[in-house]
């Protein structure tokens, strides 16, 4: 009999402490275009989200396709040049682009080339480019831009060294798709 009483007491204790209450769902903090997110090893400012038929360094869209282009100024604030924080902008565009999908290509707008790494302390303007069907979105459609960060893990249990986890969402921007100048 006493085990049942002990179990009931334990369950009652958990309930009294709020253990069965609904966990609060906290939405991602929202920022505006041009507003700065300052993370552990990256500073990101999303400047624009547009539709475009051509991107410098990537060329024109294929027939029947267009590009969603998000431009951001990204600064690696670590001490060492690294490519770790390049994949830190994702978008949700209706059913067309899921935030799980990294950009199809990322271009350094200053050089028109793919950035292999980000120099420490050097703000770099990057264009994140996704291909979509040309009739899948139009100017004025709502787009959610996520600002992510790859977080540093000291003494990673798997690698036993410093490692970086996958991109973690930190901020979101809800805006409308513009037309690329």
């Amino acid at each position, binding site marked *: 009999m006493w085990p049942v009483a002990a179990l009931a007491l334990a369950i009652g204790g958990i309930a009294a402490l709020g253990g069965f209450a609904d966990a609060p769902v906290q939405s991602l903090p929202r920022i505006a275009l041009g507003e700065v997110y300052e993370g552990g090893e990256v500073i990101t400012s999303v400047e624009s989200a547009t539709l475009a038929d051509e991107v410098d360094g990537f060329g024109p869209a294929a027939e029947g396709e267009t590009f969603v282009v998000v431009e951001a100024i990204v600064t690696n604030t670590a001490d060492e040049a690294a490519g770790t924080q390049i994949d830190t902008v994702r978008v949700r565009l209706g059913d067309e682009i899921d935030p799980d999908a990294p950009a199809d290509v990322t271009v350094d707008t200053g050089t028109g080339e793919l950035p292999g790494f980000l*120099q420490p302390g050097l703000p770099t303007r990057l264009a994140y480019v996704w291909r979509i069907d040309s009739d899948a979105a139009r100017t004025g459609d709502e787009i959610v831009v996520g600002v992510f960060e790859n977080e540093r893990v000291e003494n990673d249990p798997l690698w036993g060294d410093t490692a970086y986890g996958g991109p973690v969402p930190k901020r979101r921007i809800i805006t409308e798709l513009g037309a690329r100048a």
Partner: protein
Amino acid sequence: MSAARRRAAPDRHRRIVGAAITVALLAATALLTAARPDDLTRSFEVDGAVGETVTTRELVVTVDEVRATRSVRTADGGFDTDALFIVADATVASRIGPRLLSSTRLLVGDTVYLPSTLAALRSLADQTTIADVPLRGALVWEVPADVLAADGADDARIVVQQSADVRLDTVAVIGVDLTALEPERTVRIEPAAVPEAAS
């Protein structure tokens, strides 16, 4: 001499040897646990200065000049920056086999910069050296505009290395005083090539 005294001397000797071994083992344990893996496998630096030839196990390196500018020009065009380019004119030959120089670093204090590998620059960082054939060209780093006044700028170092992993291997380290550089309006760089004297 009594039998008891004859036994005491070897006993004392054994105790001293035992204590010495224990101290040595404790010291070795402390040394091994204090040293981090990075310390145990760090590369060996062969130091040099601008204008000197530095020879490592794999490379022969001469950095002739280091300049700063906001505009690098090539035969096909060039690049401008709101920040700063540090340009090092150098000649590098590998001693053993083909080596890529893209891991060559510029160290300013604790900050590590990698060289630009923009294809249009045709810089040394984008080339593969061939054994015993010197290659002359430029190494270009785009760095923050204030790097000439940064901590450690007076004792910056160009580390020319044959791969990203140089643990327990030698690397060439060229000391540079960046604070002495006056940014030039433009710096023209030639594509990396075998010097005429060597061809």
